[in-house]
């Protein structure tokens, strides 16, 4: 099977030659473009951004490509100060909401400028090149994530408690920003759009809060529908420890759900448990190798972990009567650090090719 055939099979739980795989390697791909290409060059130039994905695909032979940049794209374009070091993932170091009135003052930036432009254009470019080889998707921050990045998470959380209407005012602007980005991404021709709905997790928000400030009947519900109506498959990424699976998988009904696993956190769901509990029944679950292994682990170790994960997934799929609906991925982005070992990324893909083979139950 080629990549797209395998992806399509896994998405519809048809028979496949092996499990699909996609360690979420994004910024790290720039290392394939030469030592002089820094993170800040990569995330500010659509061509370099796209060339990273194209080089990554050629070198690693993934089954998908997802255009994740980092989580300070929207906040930066909204006016928050982003600290941009040459080689580190940039982050917001000055928020711009200091009073309740400031939520009202947030304005959607011109998405034809700034890093919003880079990510849209860059996605268009890599999609053009890779769309006949793998399923390509764009990546976008959900409204609550964009707002917490802009206003500061704690501020937003406390205001949720005391002045929810101010928070909703901010969220409405984020939704409009997201809406324009969805429209722009839909014109790039990508097959899917991955939403980062990070805050749907029980270490941070309960069902009630999540439902009120992002949830199904609110902003996310609307944006999910817009995604599908714009011709892109709805995908969700949530790297948190205790994701709201009932809401984000069963109610949002994405075609792909990417999640992490935290063995040390009680109740963090393993791949086997996620499948056993039926979350893969209608959705391609992607997970859950610890991203830090790409920096820290010896190559033999990450191969062993990947092999064990393949075994765990295959056994669980059989137990559940499923055929292929799990993608061996990295739970969160492969760290874009200089120290990340490209050999470890390759080892994951190669191990899945060997040990992810599906021979029936």
């Amino acid at each position, binding site marked *: 099977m080629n990549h797209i055939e395998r992806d399509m099979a896994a998405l519809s739980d048809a028979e496949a030659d092996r499990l699909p795989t996609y360690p979420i390697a994004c910024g790290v791909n720039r290392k394939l473009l030469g030592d002089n290409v820094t993170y800040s060059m990569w995330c500010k130039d659509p061509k370099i951004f796209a060339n990273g994905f194209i080089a990554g695909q050629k070198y690693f032979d993934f089954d998908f490509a997802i255009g994740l940049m980092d989580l300070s794209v929207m906040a930066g374009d909204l006016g928050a100060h982003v600290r941009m070091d040459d080689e*580190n993932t940039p*982050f*917001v*170091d000055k928020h711009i909401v200091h009073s309740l009135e400031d939520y009202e003052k947030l304005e959607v930036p011109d998405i034809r400028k700034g890093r919003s432009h880079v990510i849209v254009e860059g996605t268009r470019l890599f999609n053009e090149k890779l769309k006949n080889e793998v399923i390509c998707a764009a990546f976008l921050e959900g409204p609550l994530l964009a707002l917490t990045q802009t206003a500061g*998470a*704690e501020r937003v*959380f*406390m205001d*949720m*408690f*005391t002045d929810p209407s101010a928070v909703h005012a901010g969220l409405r602007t984020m939704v409009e920003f997201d809406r324009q980005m969805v429209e722009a991404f839909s014109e790039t021709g990508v097959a899917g759009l991955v939403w980062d709905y990070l805050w749907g997790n*029980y*270490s*941070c*928000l*309960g069902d009630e*809060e999540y439902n009120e400030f992002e949830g199904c009947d609110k902003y996310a519900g609307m944006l999910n529908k817009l995604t599908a109506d714009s011709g892109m498959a709805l995908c969700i990424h949530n790297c948190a*420890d205790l994701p709201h699976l009932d809401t984000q998988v069963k109610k949002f009904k994405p075609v792909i759900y990417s999640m992490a696993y*935290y063995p*040390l*956190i009680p109740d963090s769901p393993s791949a086997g448990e996620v499948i056993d509990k039926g979350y893969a029944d209608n959705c391609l679950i992607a997970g859950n190798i610890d991203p*830090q292994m790409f*920096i*820290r682990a010896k190559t033999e170790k990450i191969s062993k972990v990947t092999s064990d994960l393949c075994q765990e997934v295959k056994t669980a799929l059989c137990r559940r009567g499923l055929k292929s609906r799990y993608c061996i991925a990295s739970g969160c982005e492969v*760290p874009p*650090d200089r*120290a990340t070992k490209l050999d470890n990324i390759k080892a994951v893909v190669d191990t899945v090719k060997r040990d992810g083979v599906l021979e029936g139950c």
Partner: protein
Amino acid sequence: MNKEEILNGLSEAVILGKPDQARSYAQRSIDEGIDPLDAINNGLVKGMSVVGDRYAAREVYLPQVLMSANTMYAGLDILLPMIPSEELEDKKKVAIGVVEGDVHDIGKNIVKTMMTAGGFEVKDLGRDVPIETFISVAESIKTDVVAMSTLMTPTMDGMKDVIDGLIESGYRSKVKVVIGGPPTSPEFAEEIGADHRDANAQDSVAWLKEALF
């Protein structure tokens, strides 16, 4: 209003996340001549422990916890200055921060709150804190504890750099170093020469009390 009603009013304010109520009960407790330490421990802190336990049991979530913390601080702002300074001298000091390169500070703030509730005087260095700041502040305020948090693996090494710096400056033997955050482990703490690592706020306070008192 009797003492019990005032103390209950303080803990209720914290549990419900109502800073104004905490301020007014704090003022009343002073007016009624209640020992401020009593008002803190059996009022504000009692409420914060209830919220801490409910958060650990996932009955309440961050908006509530952060608001309760805010409420506790509002009450403390009024009550702490009323404590005679000799009594405060016994308070052990903690300098806490998120190591350089990491902006995840929600967990650190919860630990800070529970340490404050546990009777420590806490100096918050914030997030993305340079190594030198940990060392210079520890020395200048003569802290008893340096507490470091990180949620990211690439920044874990910063914890070791702080400890090495403390050794170099000669201050290491005067402080306990506690670390936390999901990527850290007891083994990592040992490897870098920290005294302790904890998975959550409450347990680390219990450990510190044991180690220091």
